[in-house]
């Protein structure tokens, strides 16, 4: 995506000046803090990996000392916010053509300041060739790493850390990419790496893999032989030629020999009997396109056949393809897929990887970073800094697609805590967090992209407003706008760029982009205010609830939960009223709610359940700050606690919109405890536990949760999961099947979505589910 300055998009690599100017805020970012380099030099592309620390502003909340004070009296905010610098770790991967290697090395050398790095891990065929150049330019010692070891390490890494990393390619379906849910156990699998030649590796565990075979007929054959036959020099141009050719002019088909199909063997007349079988004649000329096509089929079919033979011999059905021959090229993915289907009779699926090109560099990096134990962390793809998959249509713009003169980026943030599956998922391998696949659903995609575009102005304003003291806030906010806008445009044309497109990924991308321009928490002030206001209302709400009879109280609690959920950052009309008369606002919100029966209404079942024995332990995923968590969730929690149910309240680790963060929840709980003995004793006795989810998303991926939370859930034997809010219970997890009882609540605050679900604005989802015995 990030094009190098001098190149200009349309020109091909040949004409490019080697002395390019690199825009440092786009490529090789955060070089000044870079340490630990790795480089993977392939036949045509270089992949550079480095580890860097990124300084981010973060909003920290800190509790005042309230002991002895009456919270009701003062008008001060409930806690203070300070913006601090935080250092997070990030992996940067940059991919560029070998042509630029010298320029890039110079650039790195010039920008590398604070590093005590002495070594660079190198892998790939070209590592040998460029060893001296690297050592001379960077003055780093080149440590060569085994290519295949790196590749496998990289492959394991992306399969474990990047959701939707693997996909199947289906040429004539829409979308062409079918992303795969990450299987909790990625092993064993077969990796077929199609570089110059082909390597077939069986991977059994993190550290155990075996080269089980290979073939010399690979990408180099296509390129070399193709160049000889067509006088076309570039690999991408060859592919382009191939996409236009007719192989039947060059290949001898079954029907050329039989006059038709081969009946007893059931071979269709269209099958290739002999590749290039028709070219054994001197009296005909063959077009470049036709020869390239024939060559492509010959090689793809051959590789597919061998891969199937090896898969069969080793009883493996997951086969990942990588290497520059594949590298996201729809033409080769198509022929390989076809071949695999043909030879395996559908038993083996050809899987491709979004970050296939980076595997070697990732692996080499991991190899060098072994003492840091990068595998103990979880990592997340940073959508702001990563280029994503390129277009799938070579016909549209072949030269651009070829990425000549472009730099492709992948950035991965180290997450503070390792992420694991929620132990309560019914079937982790089939769990899909997202309710609607926007890659699949064009109508919904169009709506949501437009929706996010339209909301962009407001987000920008909010971002600027959140940092009144900052001189460059407007400028940064404008950069944010451009970045996110261009992401949205990319996604319009390439919905598959970052895996399955979902509302969640759109929200997450926005968060990443905001972070990128140092707007870590644009809603911190709003949340602070809302929390303050809501805290003040808490005792009154509790008194009101306690005055009700048991059955009325249960309904009021649920309504409170739902009403609180109306207070989304986007519900502007509501928050305006809130400022003048908060309590009225909360009541008004309750009025706004759809009357029962709700759009999805299993309240009676829930009530019935409440008449039974208490739950052992409830896991509650909270949504918004302010009224939602304080006046909606906490009273509900309090009731559960009173029933003798333990409660784990899980909040986001990092900020996202006006969602309550873990840190905020600690303060809020502390303040509530000061007012309410039930909560107070529960906190003290650890019957109420505040935990973080490990996420910074407005949505919820139950397959990537904080490990500590997962452990606690298991320890406490949680038998009820409550998921609240549109982002967590509708956009995601609406269909999530759990092994225990679950309650999914949300108010639909988007009329389009409400309509789609068959209801109206402020329709209520109350979904209480009990797993089948």
């Amino acid at each position, binding site marked *: 995506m990030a094009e190098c300055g001098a190149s200009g998009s349309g020109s091909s690599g040949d004409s490019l000046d080697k002395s390019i100017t690199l825009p440092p805020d786009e490529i090789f970012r955060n070089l000044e803090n870079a340490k630990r380099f790795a480089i993977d030099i392939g036949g045509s592309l270089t992949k550079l990996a480095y580890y860097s620390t990124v300084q981010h502003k973060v909003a920290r909340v800190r509790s005042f000392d309230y002991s002895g004070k009456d919270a009701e009296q003062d008008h001060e905010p409930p806690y203070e916010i300070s913006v601090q610098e935080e250092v997070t770790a990030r992996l940067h991967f940059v991919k560029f053509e070998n042509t630029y290697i010298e320029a890039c090395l110079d650039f790195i050398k010039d920008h590398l300041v604070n590093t005590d790095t002495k070594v660079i891990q190198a892998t790939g065929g070209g590592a040998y060739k460029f060893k001296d150049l690297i050592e001379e330019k960077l003055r780093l010692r080149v440590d060569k790493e085994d290519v295949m070891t790196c590749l496998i390490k990289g492959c394991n890494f992306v399969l474990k850390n990047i959701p939707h990393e693997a996909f199947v390619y289906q040429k004539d379906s829409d979308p062409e990419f079918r992303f795969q849910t990450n299987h909790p156990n990625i092993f064993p699998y077969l990796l077929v790496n199609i570089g*110059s030649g082909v390597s077939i590796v069986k991977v059994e565990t993190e550290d155990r893999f075996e080269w089980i075979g290979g073939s010399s*007929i690979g990408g180099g054959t296509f390129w*070399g032989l193709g160049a000889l036959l067509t006088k076309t020099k570039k690999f991408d141009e060859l592919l382009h030629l191939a996409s236009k050719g007719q192989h039947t002019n060059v290949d001898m088909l079954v029907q050329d020999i039989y006059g038709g199909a081969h009946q*007893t063997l059931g071979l269709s007349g269209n099958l*290739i009997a002999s*590749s290039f*079988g028709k070219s054994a004649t001197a009296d005909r000329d063959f077009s470049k396109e036709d020869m390239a096509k024939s060559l492509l089929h010959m090689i793809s079919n051959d590789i597919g056949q061998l891969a199937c033979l090896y898969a069969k011999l080793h009883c493996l059905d997951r086969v990942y393809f990588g290497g520059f021959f594949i590298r996201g090229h729809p033409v080769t993915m198509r022929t390989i897929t076809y071949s695999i289907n043909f030879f395996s009779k559908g038993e083996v699926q050809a899987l491709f990887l979004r970050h296939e090109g980076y595997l070697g560099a990732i692996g080499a990096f991991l190899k060098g970073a072994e003492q840091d134990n990068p595998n103990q962390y979880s990592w997340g793809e940073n959508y702001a800094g990563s280029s994503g998959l390129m277009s799938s249509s070579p016909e549209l713009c072949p030269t651009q697609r070829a990425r000549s003169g472009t730099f492709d980026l992948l950035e991965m943030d180290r997450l503070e805590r390792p992420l694991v599956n929620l132990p309560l998922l019914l079937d982790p391998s089939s769990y899909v967090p997202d309710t609607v696949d926007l890659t699949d659903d064009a109508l919904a995609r169009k709506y949501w992209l437009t929706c996010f575009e339209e909301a962009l102005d407001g987000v920008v304003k909010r971002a600027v407003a959140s940092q009144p003291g900052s001189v460059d806030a407007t400028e940064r906010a404008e950069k944010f706008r451009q970045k996110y806008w261009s992401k949205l445009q990319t996604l319009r044309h390439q919905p598959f760029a970052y895996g399955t497109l979902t509302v969640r990924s759109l929200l997450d991308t926005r968060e990443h982009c905001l972070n990128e321009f140092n707007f870590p928490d644009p809603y911190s002030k709003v949340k602070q205010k809302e929390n303050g206001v809501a805290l003040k209302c808490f005792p009154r709400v509790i008194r009101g609830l306690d005055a009700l009879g048991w059955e009325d109280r249960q309904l009021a609690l649920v309504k409170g939960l739902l009403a609180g959920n109306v207070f989304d950052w986007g519900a502007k009309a509501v928050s305006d009223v809130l400022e003048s008369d908060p309590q009225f606002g909360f009541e008004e919100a309750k009025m706004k709610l759809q009357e029962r029966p709700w759009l999805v209404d299993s309240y009676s079942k829930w009530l019935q359940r409440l008449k039974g024995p208490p739950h052992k332990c409830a896991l509650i995923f909270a949504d918004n700050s302010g009224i939602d968590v304080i006046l909606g969730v906490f009273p509900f929690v309090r009731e559960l606690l009173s029933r003798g149910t333990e409660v784990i309240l899980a909040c986001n680790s990092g900020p996202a919109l006006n969602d309550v963060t873990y840190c905020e929840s600690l303060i809020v709980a502390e303040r509530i405890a000061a007012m309410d003995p039930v909560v107070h004793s529960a906190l003290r006795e650890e019957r109420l536990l505040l935990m973080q989810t490990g996420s910074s998303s407005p949505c919820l991926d139950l397959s990537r949760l904080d490990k500590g939370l997962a452990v606690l859930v298991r320890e406490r034997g949680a038998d009820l999961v409550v998921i609240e809010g549109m982002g967590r219970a509708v956009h995601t997890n609406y269909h999530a099947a759990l092994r225990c009882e679950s309650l999914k609540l949300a108010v639909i605050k988007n009329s389009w979505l409400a309509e789609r679900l068959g209801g109206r604005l402020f329709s209520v989802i109350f979904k209480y589910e009990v797993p089948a015995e």
Partner: protein
Amino acid sequence: MLKLVGGGGGQHWACSVAGTGLGGKEAAFEVARPRYQEEAGCRGHGWGSAGISDSAPGAGMLPAGAAGRARGGQSAEERGEPVGEGEERRARHPPAPALRLLNRKPQGGSGEIKTPENDLQRGRLSRGPRAAAPAPGMGDRGGRPEHSATHAPGAPADAGAAAVNGLLHNGFHPPPVQPPRLCSRGPAGGGDAAPPRLPLLPELQPQPPPPQHDSPAKKCRLRRRMDSGRKNRPPFPWFGMDIGGTLVKLVYFEPKDITAEEEQEEVENLKSIRKYLTSNTAYGKTGIRDVHLELKNLTMCGRKGNLHFIRFPSCAMHRFIQMGSEKNFSSLHTTLCATGGGAFKFEKDFRMIADLQLHKLDELDCLIQGLLYVDSVGFNGKPECYYFENPTNPELCQKKPYCLDNPYPMLLVNMGSGVSILAVYSKDNYKRVTGTSLGGGTFLGLCCLLTGCETFEEALEMAAKGDSTNVDKLVKDIYGGDYERFGLQGSAVASSFGNMMSKEKRDSISKEDLARATLVTITNNIGSIARMCALNENIDRVVFVGNFLRINMVSMKLLAYAMDFWSKGQLKALFLEHEGYFGAVGALLELFKMTDDQ
């Protein structure tokens, strides 16, 4: 060739002839003529009503053809006097294995056996019964999922089977001993006088023919057979044919025990064929007899003689058929045992141009039967099968005889234009494991494109002089030496043609090197697939056959090396002297078998 769609009978006639006339192509007329004649004949018998209108223009036009006179006359004669061909047709039907029934049923039901080509051509719409019959060999199997695929892998050229030979694959047709003047009139009408040999289901029988009388042709054939007194033996000449994607393989049995009486009775045609084939080693520009392969003093079907091995390019097939027509081959022997894809592709032409009925045979059956037979008779006292001792040591590597007496199970790799791989468990228990489209055709095709050569010999000659390591990228080119992590030697090929990614290297490469690299690439790939199949099928003997190996020591040694090296000595590569001819031999054996079955 016949471009015009005929509506009704008469119209059709006009169209056909007009079409050929206008087309101006040499062959076109030739094709048209026998078809005309045949149709005329058939209609005369099968659809009497249509025959009359047809016959008039037909008879008038025919003499225009080069060899048309006799045939024209014959057609006319037959139309005038329908012979008892109904029964004879029955006789020509082959044994009816289950597979074949499906194919034959619609055709048999139509009661006419001479005109499947009509179905292949346009005339079908105008003729109810024939329209219903699927064109043999042309019908697409609807079940193929990749029906519309623009590309499709791995169906080898010579993978084959011939269950489609539903109609008309007569076992043999005793040539008449009478002067051809009379006899030659028979075949066009299908009046071959072989008695019914095989029980056929009644519903599959052709419709009862019109009243018949013994034609002179039939009489002469009957006499001939009685004269010879060799009921279980097909009449000469004995041919077996394998029409592949690139090469046609023909085996011819030359009887050496011909008695004086026989010699005297031998018709001119037969004699001239025998003399022509045995006294020449090259035929036309491209036909070649592999004299060194000749099997001498062979007893086949009770006769002693020599088996000759002849080949010519498949593109010469039309010339060959033409020759068959000109030499009036049909007067001797109206069916020919043929296998390979061409048996299907050219069936129509054989029938229409040369008036010859092909007995189409499954090519994999033929391959296996032929192979077992040749191995069993040996190569003139020497063993047929051999292997290479010390395959991994170029200095000590040498050809050694191998006894294939107990060959099962074996993996049979047939390398023609494409490659078929069979797992053979017994004489008639085998399965096709897989195939690859990277075969001999690919080698030659690529060589032609890369070097401008024109023949296999030329390509191999160049390859023999070349060095593939200039073209291929070796492991050591990438890693500077062995790739120890995976136990790969530095000398192993990492990427075939990998060095050709560099323009400088492309500019300086020799044609010989390119030819060699092509050969090595294709050979290694076949070896690799064969080895994987052997592992998957748990078979340790791999027999390589097919004409890709003809005069191709480089490939044989490479295969021997690859099998041994990659399997750590577990797999053995075996080769056979008559590498490419087994299909044709198998076809010839079918000729005898049909007689035996009787």
